[in-house]
């Protein structure tokens, strides 16, 4: 332990539905060391200063996707963000933008989960396959077509970064559309036609206006803006080729 304890001011947007009609900021002075994440700062508050503070977390190593929040206005994983980077100015922590606040730093993920389920985020086999058929084979290039998108951890930071989702909740949104593309781009998958019905709908790819911030904030290097916008071209081709015999939308 260092000789002189350092402190940092953490402002937290509190919302306790039973006692507040709208969220209010509450400030905490938290002792910290250079190796402490923002999540650990919040855990210090919960353990020592105010046990009523609510937030989600699990793995502490940027793979569970539970601890996303707005840190100084930017969507971040609090386990992957360090208090030392905000010293001495302090920081403000709020629930992820664009989603309803359930309590304090916890948002309602219902809409995201419903949309995620709707795109069938799993491999749909092209034809029935027995274990005796052996494993699927894939070339490095076939793998590269989807690998990056498969790193998604469902943390919803991209939804907090997407103003189109904030303005229109019908928009399927970056993360789910990136996963839609992830499975469609997989050579083992045969479910593209049913997923594209959702992708080509007004709420799908076309709801995106290429702000591109989703790809910047992703903590796992997924590029949702790329997954979505390359499909706009496919969607346009699909739309026009339906007038060409033997091609098109019914495929």
């Amino acid at each position, binding site marked *: 332990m260092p000789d002189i304890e350092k402190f940092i001011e953490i402002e937290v947007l509190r*919302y306790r*539905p*039973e006692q507040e*009609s*709208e*969220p209010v900021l509450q400030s905490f002075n938290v002792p910290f060391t250079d190796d402490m994440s923002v999540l650990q700062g919040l855990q210090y508050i919960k353990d020592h200063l105010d046990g009523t503070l609510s937030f989600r977390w699990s793995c502490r190593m940027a793979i569970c996707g539970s601890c996303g929040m707005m840190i100084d*206005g*930017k969507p971040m994983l609090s386990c992957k963000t360090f208090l030392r980077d905000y010293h001495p100015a302090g920081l403000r922590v709020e629930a992820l*933008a*664009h989603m*309803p*606040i*359930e309590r304090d730093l916890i948002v*309602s993920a219902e809409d995201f989960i419903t949309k995620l389920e709707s795109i069938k985020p799993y491999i749909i086999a092209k034809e029935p396959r027995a274990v005796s058929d052996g494993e699927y084979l894939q070339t490095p*290039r076939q793998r*590269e*077509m989807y690998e990056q998108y498969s790193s998604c951890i469902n943390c919803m930071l991209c939804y907090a970064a997407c*103003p189109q989702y*904030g*303005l229109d909740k019908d928009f399927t949104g970056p993360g789910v559309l990136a996963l839609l593309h992830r499975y469609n781009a997989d050579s083992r998958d045969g479910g593209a036609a049913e997923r594209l019905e959702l992708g080509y709908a007004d709420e799908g790819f076309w709801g995106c*206006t*290429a*702000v*591109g*911030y989703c*790809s*910047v904030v992703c903590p796992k290097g997924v*590029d949702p*803006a*790329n997954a979505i*916008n*390359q499909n*706009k*071209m496919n969607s346009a081709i699909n739309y026009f080729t339906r007038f060409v015999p033997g091609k098109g939308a019914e495929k």
Partner: protein
Amino acid sequence: MSATGSDARRHAGGRRPYVRSMDGWWKRDPYFIRYMAREATAIFVAAYAIVLLFGLYRLSQGPAAYDGWLQALKSPLSLAFHLAALATFVYHTWSWFNIMPKTMPILFAGGKRVTPAAITSAGLAAAIVMCLVIFGIVWRIA
């Protein structure tokens, strides 16, 4: 800012999810301001297209009308508009080619993946070459 009543009624057991306002969303992050600037350049692109279309219309009315349009382009107000349009066109070009890699499928060249930076650079280089070619042609005609 207000909690949505319908949400509150839908959820039993004291849940009252709070929905935050989107007012002024584009001022919240410098990234959104740059995005809005990129989109706003489309206004100048459209305005300049109208100026050119109007020139075509004047051309259809005969040499005198067309000369009048050419003279109008030389006014200080028109020159100021052209300078402003040039600046926004440069930003439009730069911002568009920056987002272009997002609009393209994964490309391979010589067995290697083409990087987003290479796509952006190729686009910008093509734009510069085209500008110089068109400038050269116009210079020879004029």
